[in-house]
């Protein structure tokens, strides 16, 4: 009783059909968050183009079809060993299952928020989770200071501790409207609406033209080798 199944050599662990992912990206996500905005999700060919990108990144250090942290570091910094607090946070947020790797489905769904047409609310919420380092549901003053220090260290910017404290204090008093020593999601939303450039990193214009940059030669119909 032979069991024949088509060889899906191009697939990686965690691979999901482009048609499934295209249906699931931003549109449904927005509805589940109560947004009434209609906006396009990734098309099937965009998902296929993202797969080309995913393959490139996920094979760069360990060729297993999964993005490891080193591979993200290599893609962002051209240096697989460069550690960075913010890249770590990006990695953790993309790694929805928290199994230490980013699978294709997680990759596509997470990038959906970065599409120029994705709802601003989603972008705002993503940055909140990004900056909530210890995932307490709030951005605490210590976390903010830690992030500022990390940035200064990363960019060789030299500022005295006094100046850092002053800046953190001022930011916190502007954002922490309730004055309880931490920034909650509502306060964050309010703060971003006054400072929209704070979510500038959350939009990648490339995503609109992704099919040009990563042409996919995958046929849209996949033929099964045989029937069972």
């Amino acid at each position, binding site marked *: 009783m032979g069991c024949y199944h088509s060889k899906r050599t191009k697939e990686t662990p965690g691979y999901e059909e482009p048609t499934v992912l295209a249906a699931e990206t931003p549109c449904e996500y927005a509805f589940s968050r109560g947004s009434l905005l209609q906006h396009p999700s990734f098309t099937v060919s965009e998902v296929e183009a993202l797969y080309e990108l995913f393959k490139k990144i996920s094979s760069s250090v360990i060729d297993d079809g999964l993005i490891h942290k080193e591979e993200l570091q290599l893609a962002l910094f051209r240096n697989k060993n460069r550690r960075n607090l913010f890249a770590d946070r990006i990695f953790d947020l993309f790694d929805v299952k928290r199994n230490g790797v980013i699978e294709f489905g997680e990759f596509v769904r997470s990038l959906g928020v970065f599409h120029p047409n994705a709802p601003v609310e989603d972008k705002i919420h993503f940055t909140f989770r990004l900056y909530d380092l210890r995932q307490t549901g709030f951005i605490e003053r210590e976390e903010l200071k830690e992030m500022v220090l990390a940035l200064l260290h*990363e960019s060789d910017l030299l500022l005295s501790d006094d100046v850092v404290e002053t800046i953190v204090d001022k930011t916190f008093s502007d954002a922490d409207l309730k004055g309880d020593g931490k920034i909650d999601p509502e306060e964050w939303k309010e703060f971003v609406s006054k400072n929209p450039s704070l979510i500038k990193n959350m939009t990648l214009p490339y995503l609109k033209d992704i099919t*040009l*940059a990563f042409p996919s030669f995958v046929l849209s119909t996949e033929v099964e080798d045989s029937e069972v």
Partner: protein
Amino acid sequence: MFDALQSRSIGFNSHIAIKKGNHKEINFYDEELNKADDEKKDGELASTSLNAFDIISFSSGLNLSGLFDDSYNSVDDGERFVSTESPENLMKKVEEFAKEERLRVKRRKELGLEMEGQNGNLMISVEVYRLTDTLFVVEAKRSGGDAGCFKETWKNKLKPVIMAT
């Protein structure tokens, strides 16, 4: 077709263009977003300071463009440093530099400008942000063109001019 490829050198992967036979330019540099920011900033007081989250946003770990653009290198393509010099003085120096080097100033705001030269191979944007009453962050970025051109010009010519007291 070759001319069309040569005339825009902004992060353009000419290999892909030949494959697709498509002349649509891939905008690897978010000109549209920059314009929107410009319009907003010109309307605001120029004395708006960077807040702590603005500073954090500078991180290359938060700039996912690097995933898409192979030519973009967060280390070589720009630099930021803190300066105590008045932004007006700084901008004056940059403008003079542009004049001397015969660079065309493409966009100009109160505390920033973008200049182009060497047939489009050199594109530099310089922007000054207020940090506190006495401190400013100067940011110089490659806004297109050739990475080598930028690095060479920035390191050997423009940076020394800006840092000279």
